[in-house]
């Protein structure tokens, strides 16, 4: 029963949600909306488990003086302060803890947001190093990739057409990069997307039918 009931619920709710895609009537759409809203409530409870896990793992590491344990103190203190300040702001502003002028908003704007942007900006350097490796021409395929990339990159900036301005229109870099993006690139992308979409449906069907069931528990 420990496995059969969850499997039955998964099958019934899964098929019902598929039905709701085709049937807009309120007898189907209202319960479907309710089920989706219920999922949000379940997720909210999940955060308690997640928070408990963060505290358990980091307090454990602090007590055992694991390597870099000092950083874990910083993490736990930051977590508690952010949650505490957010709760107090939420009480004071009727739930709007991120309203203008709240302490939570200040923490978000002056600490979290700049740190997040800093990390994101590192992507530019990672792209440069990855591109350096990708464009080393060691095989025919790598050579084709490098040529296509060169055409697309140059074709998207004004200087590209300056280089090829004297050639017929079809050989302008901007025209060639348009062709690469619209035909070979789009065809390959759509083929992958169609395959992935069928994979999504097959996985969903396996879960609904209880064939993929290992997420329930380790016990058979």
């Amino acid at each position: 029963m420990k496995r059969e009931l969850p499997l039955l619920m998964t099958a019934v709710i899964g098929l019902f949600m598929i039905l709701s895609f085709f049937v807009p009537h309120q007898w189907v759409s209202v319960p479907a909306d309710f089920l989706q809203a219920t999922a949000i409530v379940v997720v909210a409870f999940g955060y308690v488990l997640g928070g408990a896990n963060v505290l358990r793992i980091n307090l454990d590491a602090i007590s055992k003086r694991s390597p870099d344990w000092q950083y874990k103190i910083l993490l736990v203190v930051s977590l508690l302060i952010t949650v505490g300040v957010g709760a107090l702001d939420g009480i004071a502003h009727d739930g709007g803890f991120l309203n203008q002028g709240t302490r939570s908003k200040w923490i978000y704007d002056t600490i979290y947001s700049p740190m997040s942007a800093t990390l994101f900006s590192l992507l530019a350097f990672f792209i440069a190093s990855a591109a350096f490796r990708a464009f080393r021409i060691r095989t025919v395929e790598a050579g084709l990739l490098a040529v296509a990339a060169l055409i697309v990159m140059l074709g998207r900036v004004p200087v590209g057409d300056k280089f090829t301005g004297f050639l017929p229109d079809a050989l302008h870099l901007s025209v060639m990069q348009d062709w690469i993006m619209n035909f070979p690139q789009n065809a390959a992308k759509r083929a992958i997307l169609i395959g992935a979409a069928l994979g999504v449906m097959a996985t969903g069907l396996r879960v609904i039918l209880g064939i993929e069931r290992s997420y329930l528990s380790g016990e058979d």
Partner: protein
Amino acid sequence: MAMMRRAPHCGTGLIALGLGVVSIVIALFANPALALAQAPADTAVVAAASLAPASGLLGTDVDNDAGRSLALTWKASPDDSVGKVVGYYVDRAEDPTGPWQRVDSLAAGVTAYTDQSVRRNTDYFYRISTYNLTQVVPAGSVTGPLRATSQWFNNGRYSVLVGTILFFGFVLYFMASAQSGKKPFVRRIPGIDAIEEAIGRATEMGRSVLYIPGILDIDEIQTVAGLVILENVAKLTAKYETPITVPVTYPIPFTIAEEMVKAGYLHAGKPDQYDPNSVRFITPEQFAYVAAVTGIMLRDKPAAHIFMGAFYAESLLLAETGFSTGAIQVAGTANVHQLPFFVVACDYTLIGEELFAASAYLSGDPKRVGSLKGADYMKILIILSVLVGCVLETMGIHGFTKWMETQ
């Protein structure tokens, strides 16, 4: 069922208009700006040099919904084209005599609106008021009654229904066929084979394995696929007695990941070796998660990094950091725009559907493998549909393409 009615109620409308004019003129004398801003919906403001009202208001029930919306269209005021109109108010009432409730205000030039705040099976009357900075001029007539009703089938999704039934039919047939002994051939997928190689290498080096099941919540099917593969990976790490670390972004995947890793150790016959600290909840915040995971990569130096699931901008940040540590890296995602990053930075990459095939490939379970065959047949059908569609469109026959369009 769609309705398209226009029922004029000019007499009562004019009486209301007259009363409205008197009351609003008094209010305007008292405080013109305030009176305009706070004018109730069932009043009208008309000045001497009158603004031409909008006309031709038509309403219809929106098809293929749960009876919660009505679509309106009208002809713009003649003064709209010369810039005298600031916008239009959409007013609604359950009786043609009012009281009127202001539903929305729209910019000049707008001549269509869908009211999504109606109750189903209730009669409504509408009027459009034209306004500028000094006047609010309601249309001379109201339109209604309009009633929103719900439908039992979305007419724009017949093609999807047929496709879904065919696909499910193929999958179920090949599952049954595989179960009866006709196990289909599955080609080798080097990326999946490389997972065992990566875990073996981590074991030889005495280091851990880092598994990342994407950065999205459980409502993303790639996360489900990533978590299903996790069980097989955990089984291998248990077999080789190699530690595994699974940092997770959302709480529900976190609890499922814990179950998966436990299940892996249990099925490998080593439940006592399961480390409850191996699955860690980090944060749903994208770059905070990146900071935590790259920290794990640089401090703990796992020998194998496995990325399976949905990834966005963090894909290259994680994969390049992993590359710099010298770890063997296997990635899989159906997010097409992230695939080039993984292809460049990882040793093996599962592309698109290979991610969803991985659990069937790893388990060897006939039912799961059968579902792959069903998906292959559906792909053949899609290719045929594309070819037929191209031929028909070239011949000027558009029926098939129209039927394939969905809402």
